[in-house]
Every structure is written in structure tokens, then in C-alpha cells.
């Protein structure tokens, strides 16, 4: 799947490009609005990621132009502006999704996969496998070495989120945002408690562990 990213921030775009490439995407980058629009119209692109504030031509204009030529191309809008108006405008003129900068890479990846799924480019596997752990997202079951594990709904959601981002470090706040949907950490240690329970139920006692804790603030799920 080919992704075109129109983003003038070099650090951000090369970070995203590296991450997407390692996830199996072909990534092209345009650094300004004019070049980006030309590439979007001329080359084969499956998903377009476009920043709003760009040199030469702003993102809104690009989206408008691209929408005219390629009405079905999925477009993910990136912006540092968070106001509801911006978001609404971004979606109204033809963006398919809106992501506020800065964002966690896992969040971007999830949005891109969702867009790809919508146009039939990505068929997300419904069974995730990390080492001895198998998670069936559709049937809501998890097993370790073939042995069925009984999980509470939140524990299951946590496991799915970590399995989808296997090998990637996830911070506690990030997990709280994504799994519990709280944007502001209320100071509870709910994530730690659930990770603990999940480890117990998975029988995760080996060294190294399947779910590793890093400095008490981050977790990696890795075989």
C-alpha cells in the first residue's frame, strides 16, 4: 500500500516514514503544498496524509483539489490546531479523519489501518499472535500455549491494544487514553493494576517477561 505524506516538518515526517515502512507500507514524502499536490494527482497513491499548515499551498486547498480529481482517495488530516472548528472544517472539505499533532505513532498507524480497511486495502487480521499468546479479536478469546484464558472486558481490550502494537513501547498515559478513553490521567494506577492482572492470567513469569515494564511508566509486549 502506497502512502503519500505531505508534511514540512522533517523530523516528524522522517519518523513517521520510518515507522510506516517498518509496518510494510511504501511511503513517499512531499515537503511543500505545491509538490505534494502534484504528487498526489500524478502518482499512484492509496492513502494521503496531509498537514494543514504547509508552505506554498495549505492543506485545505490540497484536499479540495485532490477531492475533485480522486473522490475516493482516503485522506488523513494532520494538524497542530485542535479547535472544533478546524476539525469540522478539515472533515467537511473532504478529509476522512483528523489527527492532532503531536500524536503517538500507534495512533497514526491505527487510523491508517482503519482508512485502509474502509477502502478494502488492508484486511486486518482478526487473530493476533505474539509469542505463545493468541488473541482472537472477533471471537473475544485469548489463549496462551493453546490454553484458554478468561479475561475481563478491560483486560481483553488492553491485551488487544498491546498485541496490535507488539514490540512497541507504550506509555501508561497512552494506554489510559486508548483503552480507557481518559484524556487526562486522574492519578489512578488503573493501568498498572490491569497489566498486573493480565500478567497473572497469562502466566507471564519468565525472564524476560512477555509484558515488560520500563521504569514504571512504559510497557512493551514482546515475545
Amino acid at each position, binding site marked *: 500500500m502506497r502512502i503519500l505524506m505531505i508534511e514540512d516538518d522533517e523530523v516528524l515526517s522522517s519518523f513517521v516514514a520510518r515507522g510506516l515502512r517498518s509496518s510494510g507500507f511504501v511511503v513517499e514524502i512531499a515537503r511543500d503544498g505545491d509538490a505534494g499536490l502534484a504528487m498526489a494527482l500524478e502518482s499512484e497513491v492509496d492513502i494521503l496524509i496531509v498537514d494543514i499548515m504547509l508552505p506554498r499551498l495549505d492543506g485545505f486547498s490540497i484536499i479540495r483539489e485532490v477531492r475533485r480529481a480522486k473522490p475516493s482517495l482516503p485522506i488523513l488530516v494532520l494538524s497542530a490546531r*485542535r*479547535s*472544533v472548528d478546524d476539525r469540522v472544517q478539515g472533515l467537511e472539505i473532504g478529509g476522512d479523519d483528523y489527527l492532532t499533532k*503531536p500524536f*503517538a505513532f500507534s495512533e497514526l498507524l491505527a487510523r491508517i489501518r482503519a482508512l485502509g480497511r474502509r477502502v478494502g486495502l488492508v484486511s486486518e487480521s482478526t487473530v493476533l499472535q505474539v509469542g505463545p499468546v493468541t488473541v482472537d479479536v472477533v471471537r473475544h478469546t485469548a489463549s496462551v500455549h493453546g490454553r484458554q484464558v478468561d479475561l475481563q472486558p478491560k483486560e481483553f481490550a488492553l491485551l488487544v491494544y498491546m498485541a496490535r502494537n507488539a514490540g512497541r*513501547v507504550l*506509555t*501508561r*498515559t*497512552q494506554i489510559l*487514553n486508548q483503552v480507557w*478513553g*481518559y*484524556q*487526562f*490521567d*486522574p*492519578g*489512578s*494506577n*488503573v493501568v*498498572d*493494576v490491569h497489566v498486573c492482572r493480565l500478567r497473572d492470567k497469562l502466566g507471564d513469569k519468565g525472564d524476560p517477561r512477555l509484558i515488560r515494564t*520500563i*521504569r514504571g*511508566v*512504559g510497557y512493551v509486549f514482546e515475545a
Partner: protein
Amino acid sequence: MSLRLEGSWTKSLSLRLTVLHAAVFGLLYGLLSLVIYFMVARAVFQNVDTEMLEEFHEMEAALEKGGLAGFRAHALAEVAEEGPENLLIRLYSKSGRLVFSSDTESWGDLSVPSPTGPWRGDRQVGSVSVTRRGNLKARFMIVRLQDYVLEQVVSLEWDLRLLARLRRVLITAALLTLLIAVPAGWALARRSLVQVKRIDQAARSIVTGSDLTRRVPVRGTGDELDELARTLNMMLRRIEGYLRELSDMMDNTAHDFKTPLARIRSLAEEALMETNPLEIQGNLVQIMEETDRFLSLINAVLDISEARAGLLRLQRTRVDLNDLAWQVAGLFEGACRAKNLDLSVDLVEDEAVVVEADRGRLIQALANLVDNAVKFCPAGGRIRLVVRIRDMKAVLGVEDSGPGVPPPMRTKIFERFFRAEVPGAADGRGVGLSLAKAYVDAHGGHIHVEESPLGGTAFLIHLPLTTGVSHRQSHAETK
């Protein structure tokens, strides 16, 4: 340049007011004059007609008493008394033959109706112009008198002179009035506009000088302009308040932003000196976590602003508060155990307390209140989540046995970045309570602080109940 513009604006407005004033005044005066003039003119003509009628009666009597000779003598005496140029008396026979005529020297041919008719009514009255005397107006009356027809013509010379004089008087008076009304109107308009100008100048100097503590002058007359000045001052006060709040917030925000940034920087610096890749990874993860927390702090601040501006979009569904309290209690189980706090939940038994609310945000609000209680409650203390129905309102509360909040501080604690100076209050970020209040306000509810039955503080969220209480609905499912 701005002063010139301001001057011309004032002038044109006073000019318009003056012209309007004069026009209205002139119109009313004109109407009044017309009415007076026509009433006087009518009275004058009626008077002439009445005199002619009296004269007729006298001549009728003379004719009856002295015959034609008596009439002639009486008529001649009358004409001599009035003057032949002012009164003309003629008597015709029924067939229209002239029987008597006074001196016609100054009358000439008059286009009065023929004495033989045709008649309408028993007499004919009207006006006629005397061509021989420059179209002088005269009044005539033709009446049957026994076997004769009597014709009287009276000159209106004196009456018309009287009316002409009345016209002159009225016009002179009109001119005099306008002469007074225009400057008076001008002065009145200027007087009102001087205050407008004063308000404008004050407002202008506040705009250009950006000194928001200045106020527009109020004269104390209590008129509309005073009201305008007062409204302006009220607006200025509010703007001043907002600005002060904004600058306070900027200061606090800057301070609160510096702390995590400093931590992030030192973590990066530490990682640079480190050679062990695991240690470096650890620092990087901590940096990520610090950044995430920092971002959620920014988002919380933005949410507070949006909620205050009424822009926060809530996704309302039916939420059972019993259910919600359980869920939030679950979030803090671990934290309370770690601090040796006794966390309990006190619900409305066997009833679902349903409100229309944005579940996520309501959880966030309640969680922030619990977090606050956990932070301030000393080890071994008690925290209780309560759900109640009070005065047809749903109440969701957090009670603790902590140090409590003294009454004067109870509204202040909801201000952004306010932090109680309590020894041992660990790393409170000061945003939690403001966020909770913002979310609850956005729901159309309010947060209330009072003394807790447990000895510390009780935070009570009041929300409108949507469907009253539905018995034995979903409480069992939450267990």
C-alpha cells in the same frame, strides 16, 4: 486625523437633529397657523352675512311701515352711513325691473345672479369680485322681500385687510419662532452630543492607550447617555477581569509547562551520558510518558477553555450514576490500597439514577474529584463515593476524611492551576478540579463543596435527572 473625523461626525449628527427639530416645529406651527387663519376668515364672512341678514330684516320693517318711500329713505340712510363704496342696495320687482338702486358709481357691472332666479332656497348668498376696483372681493345676498327682490352687496375691503394683517402676523411669528427654534435645537443637540463625544473620547483613549483601568465619565443625570456610559464601564470591567485572568493563567501555564519540560530535558541529558542501552531506553520511555502527560495537560486546559466558552461538544447517552460510581471506584482501588485508604461506595439502593450525560467526561470529572481526595487524604483515611437523589436532582459525590477546605477557599479551588498550600499534598497539578467543574458545568449541572460527614471535604456534583427514577432497572447488572 481621528479627531477631525470625530468632529465632523458630531457636527453632522447635531445638524441632522437640528434640522429635524426645526422641521417638526415648523410643520406644527404651519398647521396651527392655517387652522387659525381659516377659522378667522370663516368667522369674518359669517359676520358679514349676519349683518346683511339683520339689514334685510330692518329693510323689511321699513317697507312694511312706510311702503316703498319708507324703504328708499331707510336704504339711502344706510348707504350714506356705510359709504356708497362699501354698500350697494338694489330693489327689483318680481319680474326683474329695477325699482331702487343706491349709488353704483364704485360698483360697475357685477356678475351677481339674476333676481328672477332660478332660486335655490329662499335666498342666495355668495362672493363676487368687483372688476372696476381691481377685483376687490365683495359679499352679496339676494332675498325675496314681499313682492320685491332685495339685493345687498357689501365690500370686503376692511375684512380682507384684517385677514392680510393676520397673515403678516402669523408669518412674522413663524420666522421669529424658527429663528429661536433652530439655535435652540442646535444647542440641545450639541448638549446631548457633548456627552456622547466625551464617552467616545474616553473609550478611544482607552483603546489607544490600552489602559483598561480608566472609565468613561458618568454625569449622574440618569438619562440614556448615563446608561450608555455605565454599560460601557461594565464592559470595561469585564474585559479588564478577563485580561487579568488571562494573564494570570498565562503565568501559571508557563510555570506548569516549565516543570515537565525541565524534567524531559534532564532525562534526555542523562540518556546522552549513559552507555547502557537499557538505561537509555528507560530514559526515552520516561520522556515519552512525560510528553504524553504534558499533552494531556494541554488538552485538559483546552477542554476547560472550550467548556467555558460553551464550545465543548458532549456525546450524551443515558448514564446510570450507580454504575458510573462503581466504575470510578474500581479505577482507584489500587491507589487507595497503596495509600492505606478505605474506599467505599454508597449508592441509591435498588434504583437506577439515570442522567443524560457524556459518560467519558463524567467519569473524568468524578475521577478527578476522587484523585483529589486520594491526594489530600492522609494515610488511614476514608473516601466514600455517594450517589443520591435530592430535590429531584441526581447527586454524585466524593466525601473524604481529609483536612477539609476552609469556606473562603471553596470557590477558589476550582480556578485553573489553583493549588492548596497544604504540606504533603503530592504533585497536584491543579487542573483536575477545574476540569471537573468545566465538564459538570458543560452538562448544565454544578459542583458544590461542603463539609463531609467523614470530617473532611465533600464534593457534590448536581445533575438534572432525566427520567426520574426507574425502579430496579440496571443496578443488578453492575455487580
